């Protein structure tokens, strides 16, 4: 039986022993080189390059990108993206068409794409390596992100016309960046801007995310004060020439006025002055329009949502690391100055019979006990501006025998109350920024 099996294998082997015929006319290397060359030719073919409307993640806006691939390995990338002082208006980098599991396109040097990619510790899910998918019947080239872990972003390169350079809104991007960075109050983290309708009794309070290209409508008021209603509406946008176009329009009736906001047109940017901390400061103002209705978009310190912050809860804490001066944490300095302290505490108990307003520190003593070293204060709340008049003595809670340096605690309590006090901003339902504009200090509080 065994011999029969072996003989069968032997005969099979003999029959199989014939020349291998390739099903391809060319070798694998030749076919890969040809495929790479074909894609390179496709990329360099359009005389005006390609236009890409790039939305790296669903929650972001869309960036218009012009791509001009040169023969060889140069790639010119033009965008209208500016973030802070860095702009990516016109860059030339090198690219490579390569072969891995399929054809891929790699942007080899740092560019607008890698800037987006490295945001949030490179977890933003933008990309600069792409898998080639196909060419559509319209001549568009379709690529897919090589690095997205799931649901990879699809990118469609469309042949650009000579006029497509006009799609880029660089002037608006630049002006908007200047406006959003608020030269007068650059260290305020919270983003709050006021949009006034000129011919209607309507004011919106907005925030922008310049990097993500999103705009949020947070509050609407018929008289520009804290009266009005909260809105929870955010839309990604795309910049086109002198306007931002919302991906999703805001359609709603506010105080009897039906609105359909799908875009904001931007006109000229100008300055206005105002007094803050006995200093005359300059802020920016945009003349804008919405659906032909003239509007003004300007910087403001007023946040109607911030005005209600202290009504919501009565105890807040701010970890030492969450005290920022000129935009940088001064937590280490606080730790040194107020030995054993972990956080700043704010009590705002508005009880009619027994109100309790106090600010101070949570201190762990050397013996392990806790002292809450507080100064009670009399508050004056005007809109979202809180001013404090401290009592002359400390109030101690828990271990009242704790030893601490009063002067060093006062240093930070005065930093909080100095000048015109703090402006209150709601970051989210649990987080509030309290900003002293006179010494540019931000205290980021949470409620317990």
């Amino acid at each position, binding site marked *: 039986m*065994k*011999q029969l099996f*072996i*003989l069968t*294998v*032997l005969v099979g*082997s*003999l029959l*199989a*022993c014939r*020349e*291998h015929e390739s099903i391809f006319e060319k070798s694998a290397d030749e076919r890969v080189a040809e495929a790479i060359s074909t894609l390179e030719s496709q990329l360099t073919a359009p005389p005006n390059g390609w236009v890409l409307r790039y939305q790296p993640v669903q929650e972001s806006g869309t960036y218009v990108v012009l791509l001009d691939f040169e023969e060889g390995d140069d790639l010119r990338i033009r965008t209208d993206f500016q973030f802070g002082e860095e702009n990516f208006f016109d860059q030339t*980098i*090198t690219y*490579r068409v390569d072969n891995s599991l399929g054809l891929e396109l*790699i*942007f*080899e*040097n*740092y560019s607008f794409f*890698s*800037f987006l*990619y*490295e945001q949030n*510790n*490179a*977890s933003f899910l933008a990309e*600069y*390596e792409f898998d080639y998918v196909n060419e559509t019947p319209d001549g568009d080239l379709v690529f897919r992100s*090589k*690095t997205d872990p799931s649901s990879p972003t699809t990118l469609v390169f469309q042949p650009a016309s000579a006029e497509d350079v006009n799609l880029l809104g660089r002037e608006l991007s630049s002006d908007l960046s200047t406006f959003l960075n608020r030269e007068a109050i650059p260290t305020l983290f919270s983003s709050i801007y006021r949009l006034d309708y000129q011919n209607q009794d309507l004011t919106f309070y907005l925030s922008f995310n310049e990097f993500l290209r999103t705009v949020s409508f947070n509050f609407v008021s018929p008289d520009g004060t804290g009266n009005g209603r909260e809105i929870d509406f955010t839309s990604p946008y795309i910049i086109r020439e002198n306007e931002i176009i919302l991906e999703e329009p805001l359609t709603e009736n506010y105080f009897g006025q039906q609105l359909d906001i799908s875009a904001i047109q931007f006109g000229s940017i100008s300055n206005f002055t105002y007094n803050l901390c006995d200093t005359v400061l300059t802020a920016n103002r945009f003349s804008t329009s919405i659906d032909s209705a003239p509007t003004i978009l300007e910087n403001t310190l007023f946040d109607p949502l911030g005005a209600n912050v202290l009504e919501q809860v009565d105890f807040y804490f701010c970890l030492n690391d969450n005290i920022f001066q000129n935009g940088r944490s001064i937590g280490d300095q606080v730790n040194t100055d107020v030995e054993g302290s972990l956080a700043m505490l704010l009590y705002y108990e508005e009880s009619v019979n027994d109100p309790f307003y106090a600010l101070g520190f949570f201190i762990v003593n050397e013996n392990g006990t806790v002292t809450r070293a507080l100064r009670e204060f009399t508050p004056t709340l005007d809109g979202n501006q809180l001013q404090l008049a401290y009592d002359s003595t400390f109030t101690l809670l828990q271990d009242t025998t704790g030893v601490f340096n009063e002067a060093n605690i006062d240093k930070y309590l005065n930093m909080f109350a100095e000048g015109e006090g703090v402006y209150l901003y709601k970051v989210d339902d649990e987080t509030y920024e309290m900003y002293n504009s006179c010494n540019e200090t931000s205290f980021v509080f949470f409620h317990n």
Partner: protein
Amino acid sequence: MKILNALLFALVFLISGSCYQEDPVDKEIIQVELSDDPLDQFIQTEFLDKYGIAVRYRFVDRYVDPANRVAPPRRELVREALDFLLEFWIEPYLQVENGEEFFKAHVPGEIVLIGSFIFNDDGTVTLGLAESGARITLTEVNNVDDTDPVWVIRQLRTIYHEFAHIVHQRYNLPANFQQISPRGYTSPGSWFTLTDEEALQRGYVSPYATSSFNEDYAETVAHILFDDDFFETFIDQADDCTDQACIERNEGRALIRQKFNTVIDHHTQNTGVDLLEVRARIQEKF
């Protein structure tokens, strides 16, 4: 019968094997056209021709672990980063006895430049990598600024650290190195919970040095070379200790002193290069 079976098997294998066509061995050698890019030419003359180092500055994903995320270097900053390496890494070795021979014999074949940090899945970042003595990966090229002491120190620490790995990968660790502070090493993934002070009290030059014997060696070498306060911080005993922390720092220094001596001896014996001479050349540059 068994012999017959064996013969039949052998016959089958011979027939099968003989089916393959002969592979031609006279393939034409692929000629690569040299780049006329000034940056590539600089790399060719200053790194490849002189030391056999290929510098990879254009992004290729196989140089990076697929689990990590990086941004490529800004092309316009690559030359500046390379000048920095020439001045602070290569030149000091060339200026000391046996240094040039040592450098050329041990230098890795590839340097990979990364623009950003290497971002890891666990939220930490990697400053640099040495892989089997063949490749060193340097990060943070996009922040190049040789007037910024923070950037300079971080880069020097990384490059000397990674280069030190190549030495122990070639010659093993000094004989008694692992017995000097065996109880101070941290459990995997927890080194970053230590402060510099705690690491010093345990007998290490940095918290990262507590992560393994190899990292301890590389960190010790790197600190010997780049840290101008090395002796004050890690070697010299404080005479006037009045508190427990000071006493514990001195105990740590005693351990580091043992490591220092064994590292210097081991390096000199195996490579002929005195690390203290190299340190002196580096410190002259500040």
